[in-house]
């Protein structure tokens, strides 16, 4: 499964639409390489990236926390 495919699965989550973080249309067109400026989506990509690259869970978690601390 590619990063793109994994990302697409997360973009289908109802929470994103409930909280108006993303619309259906936008979710369909979004690519993994797109910079969204939405922190939730960026950390999702970081998690997917790290997982596919076989980083450990604690390393990925630390990177995410560091990103959100900025």
């Amino acid at each position, binding site marked *: 499964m590619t990063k793109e495919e994994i990302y697409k699965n997360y973009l289908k*989550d109802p*929470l994103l639409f409930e909280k108006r973080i993303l619309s259906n249309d936008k979710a369909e067109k979004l690519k993994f390489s797109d910079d969204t400026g939405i*922190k*939730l989506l960026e*950390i*999702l990509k970081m998690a997917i990236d790290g*997982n596919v690259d076989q980083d450990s*869970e604690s390393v990925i978690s630390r990177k*995410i*926390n560091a990103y959100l601390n900025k």
Partner: protein
Amino acid sequence: MIIEKIELENFMCYSGRQTMKFTEGINVIVGDNGYGKSKLYDAFYWALYDQIFVTEQKKFLGTSEVRSKVVSDKAIFETKEGKVAASVKIIFHDLEKDSIYILRREFTAWKENGALREDRNSELTIQVKGLPFQNAKMITDREEMDKIIEKILPAQIKPYLWFQGEQVESIIDFNQQDTLTRAINVLSSITRYDEIKTVATLASKTARTEYDREVRRLSNDAVRSQELEKQRNDLEVLIERHLKEETEIKENLSRAEEKRELLANKSADAHKVTVLQQKKKDILDQLEELNKSFDDEQIAFHRKMFRNKWVLKGTRELVEIYSKRYDQYDQQRIAANIATPRLPIDVPEPIYLQRMLDQERCLVCDREAKKGTEPYDMIAALLHRSDNKSNLATSPAHKQNFSTDFKRLYQNGLSLAHRIDDIDEDIADTLNKINNQRNRIKTTAKALQDTEKEIENLLIAASINADQAQQIDAEYYVQNEKIIDFVDRLARVSQKLESFRNELRGVNDQLRSLVKTEIPAWLTEKQQVLSDFEIIAFSTRDRVFSNLIQQLETEANRHYEAMTAGNKSARGRIKLKKLPNQNYMPEIIDEKGSPLLGSNTSNLILVKLAAIMAIVSAKSSAGIVDFYTLITDAPTSVFGEDYTIGFCKTISKVYKQSIVMSKEFYKNQQLQEELLNNPEINVGKVYVITPSIRESERINRNTLSTTIETLK
């Protein structure tokens, strides 16, 4: 990674040097029992994993334990002195990178003065060609060799790609609830989502800790904060504990439901048997009572001869004869002046005579007998007769006075005479009663026989015995009760969890309310974002998994239908059923979704194979079927011809390459033709193996070798 070739030299029954080439599609090795199919499977296994399957112990053992058993007996026998070795070489081709891996394992022994000296271990060499035309490079680093073996066939997917027929049962075991879930986890990409869940939980927890620390720092009331934090910790511990309990209850509930379902099929019959057994017991009790009553009646029957005066049956005439004789006797006594001509003494009895005098009325003719009148005097005279009996004369002929005895007999006869007429009716009633009892016993005995027959038929139909029926019935009831109990407990635990969570929210709100200054916005936002991340990670995983299950179900049914197409029996369809403990189990259902119980072994094996094929061929399985070869020994041993062909068709479509050892095609020419010529089967190489050994030398394997004939 496909297998191009295997070369065997003096390996078990393959004496000398033997080669088999393989291509894409389904490659079949055909041979009868004991011809060397399993030994070929062993060759593959030994080359990669240094183990062979020892039939006697039903397990895999390493070379250090089996040693020269891997060497051909013929090779050992024919070697007089010196080295004798067994080796297996397999050539793997990585189609993606076009690189070649050559694995060769060798075991050496020495014959010295007729005795065999064995090495302890085998030796593995691996050579790699980056491209087919390049020279092979020897790999000596142990770690790299392990990586190459892992690359050829990852350990965690090995059980699902290399297996013997009897191992299918354990790959997806209907008695182990997590085997299918485990297979899905191993073979699909779902573990990625599990790992991302872990990341989300970790990150969220870190952010929460950070947030809580800040809240504590900014709190106006440190003491109160501390209290609330303690309360929060306690609540978290309680929630953790209740979550564990919830999981445990779900597991137990799952198991109980599973057991109940297994029993469901037989419990209806078992319950009927239990009810009938009780009915039988009641009938037996009734029969015992009837028999006892009958016996009592039989005994009473004899007693009634005297108690009910049956001995007097037919004696009415005797009474009359006796009455006449007694009358004659009495008349004679009167004539001889021994007795009075009138009524005998005490007739009427004195009490009645006195009554007459008192009432001044004759009770015989019912007329007045006033005192002083003649009737009155006559009655008085009768009363006082006994005073005058000394005046009576006796004749020599009547010297012995038996009148009292005869009179007594006469009077007895009179009283018994009334009963004589009733005797016949009494006897008839009694005989009737006995007859009725006999009939009831007969009817009850027939009812017992019918009940026993019904029980027997039920037991035969359900294939259980009486004890098992009782056990099943009892066990079904027990499991049912357990389920009710677990559901109830689950509801209570869920309620408690909800309550604790509400309380926790309250405590968190209280903690936040103690902060009078602003919590940094970035921190609040961070906590919120990570909380959302955690929610999305969990719900996406569940959604992906549900979709995967649906997809697998569809795929599995596609394979199942393809494999069973040639057979006309009922097959149902596969349902991947979700259990309360979140595991999934395959089951066969009918069109209404009810379990189609009683499926035969072949169908069950096909369900398992279909489930495995669905998992390995699913889109999310990272191309397992394209990368790795299926090697399976005798998977079709329980199948009929239709299923065997169906299996071959499906396998050849699902896996890029498969190597199947099968005996089904050995003597069945038609089936062989079908395999070779059916356009729906993507057939690779087909070999027939036969042992080559003289009949007179079959007592051992000293001359055993295996002939390999190429059919395609």
